[in-house]
């Protein structure tokens, strides 16, 4: 019964993928190529622009970006979503892609770094310093630990709690102020932008995209900050390996790095 069902499901999927496959061939024969890039949500702004410039430099090429949480993207690819390039917000999810056999082991390259900052609403400043995060009554919104940025936030709080000035119960006090663990970093920023929360912890790249008149930024000292490395890789069964390789080279080129820097990322090769 169960195996029959599975057979039925598989054949249905097969029909679907075959259908999609022929569609793909049909479109490429008309002279244009489509490059599908699966990129972490935090790369939305930067990769949209990189995609546009890559299209301008390669005639007949169309770049289609799919932005979501890195872990969602890995699962989607594992379930058969077609992609040519994968840019992850952390090494953990790239490792998962390797484990799933989606990416060659030596393919991923770190293309950019990111670090954390505290954001607060500009007009309602209950939180003016890192210490204020632990002040009773402050409403703090963090990213959920299930997503990379939430994981980094916990690491930052652990490191900060070692500073005698903040006190070793700093993490505990901050967590007591948390009103919500958002499912992605953009949602954290949005709640702060709307003024629903007094503070949130996001990537510097997210803070860079926030409206200046609504959000202010508090830097986190290097001593407690966590640097996130973003790896990029070509998907093993990509039908457009060459184009995908060129795309990755473009991301790593001086122009690609400049765009990423404009969006608040830390270019690779430079010490933080």
């Amino acid at each position: 019964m169960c195996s029959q069902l599975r057979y039925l499901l598989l054949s249905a999927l097969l029909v679907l993928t075959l259908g999609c496959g022929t569609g793909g061939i049909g479109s490429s024969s008309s002279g244009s190529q489509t490059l599908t890039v699966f990129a972490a949500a935090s790369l939305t702004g930067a990769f949209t622009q990189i995609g546009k410039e890559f299209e301008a430099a390669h005639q007949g090429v169309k770049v289609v970006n799919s932005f979501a949480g890195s872990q969602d993207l890995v699962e989607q690819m594992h379930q058969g979503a077609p992609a040519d390039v994968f840019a992850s917000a952390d090494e953990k999810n790239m490792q998962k892609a390797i484990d799933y056999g989606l990416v060659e082991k030596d393919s991923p390259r770190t293309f950019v770094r990111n670090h954390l900052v505290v954001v607060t609403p500009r007009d309602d400043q209950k939180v003016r310093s890192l210490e204020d995060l632990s002040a009773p009554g402050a409403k703090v919104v963090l990213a959920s630990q299930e997503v990379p940025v939430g994981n980094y936030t916990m690491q930052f709080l652990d490191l900060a709690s070692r500073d005698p000035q903040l006190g070793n119960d700093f993490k505990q006090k901050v967590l007591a102020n948390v009103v919500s663990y958002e499912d992605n970093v953009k949602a954290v920023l949005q709640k702060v932008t709307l003024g629903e929360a007094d503070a949130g912890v996001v990537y510097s790249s997210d803070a860079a995209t926030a409206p200046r008149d609504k959000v202010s930024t508090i830097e986190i000292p290097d001593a407690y900050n966590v640097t996130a490395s973003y790896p990029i890789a070509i998907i093993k069964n990509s039908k457009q390996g060459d184009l995908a390789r060129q795309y990755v080279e473009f991301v790593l080129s001086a122009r690609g790095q400049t765009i990423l820097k404009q969006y608040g990322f830390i270019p690779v090769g430079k010490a933080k």
Partner: protein
Amino acid sequence: MMQTQVEEISTSEVAYTPSAGRRTRYLRHLGLIIASAPMVLFLAIPMIALVAQAPLEEIIARLTDRQVSMAIALSVYTTITTTCVTVALGTPLAYLMARYRFRGKKMLDTLIDLPLVLPPSAAGIALLLTFGRHGILGERLADLGLQIPFTPLAVVLAQTFVSAPFYIRATMNGIASVDSSLEEAGMVDGAGTLRLFWNITFPLARVAMISGAIMTWARALGEFGATIIFAGNFPGRTQTIPIAIYLGFNINLESAVVLSSILLCASFGVIMIVKWALKQSVTRADIY
């Protein structure tokens, strides 16, 4: 509505002798059965695929997990609250819509349907802009010291907003199908509005009303988009089962599958029981 259905089945049962009759009836409806099969399979297979992936031991083991049990408890109590609030505030509106004609009724009718077509995430944003700290009403509420976002109340508001139309629509139709002359007769006898409703309208419209309340409850149980935007995610406070499923999907598929199966089985069980109880009460009413 349901009463006539019951009758139809029973008359056809009488018309044929059970053994040979049933066979010819199946043959006669073979074409219809085949034509219905794709939709049935399309609805059933994904459900089976989900449950087949979740072994029973794992479901039981997961139930005792603190975060899972908190999500279940929160979902139970927010959805029950939502259903009660909807029944309390939706019934007068449904009665008004079913019994009276007035200017702007068409617009009000459309307004009631609006949450059904609005994407839940848009509903969440709308609620945030209304009840948020800087929202139209939220600002005033904040002055009174009442802050709604990130609280269980926000979960209830989000659920009510997206799920109330199911109850209101069903109750409107239920009340409209009750002959208003029955109410008028009661009114002549001097019964008050509430008594009229309770003794005449409700008993006749109750199948539709209870079915509507169940649809509202079920929709509230599955509510995700508006909740995560308006209420956020905090275990035990605003993390309902659907949100726990979504976040579980981010760590590993297994835990999300187990939670989804729990949700699926629980809703299936509750809806079946209520349908069965309703049928019982309808047939009993027929007998007496």
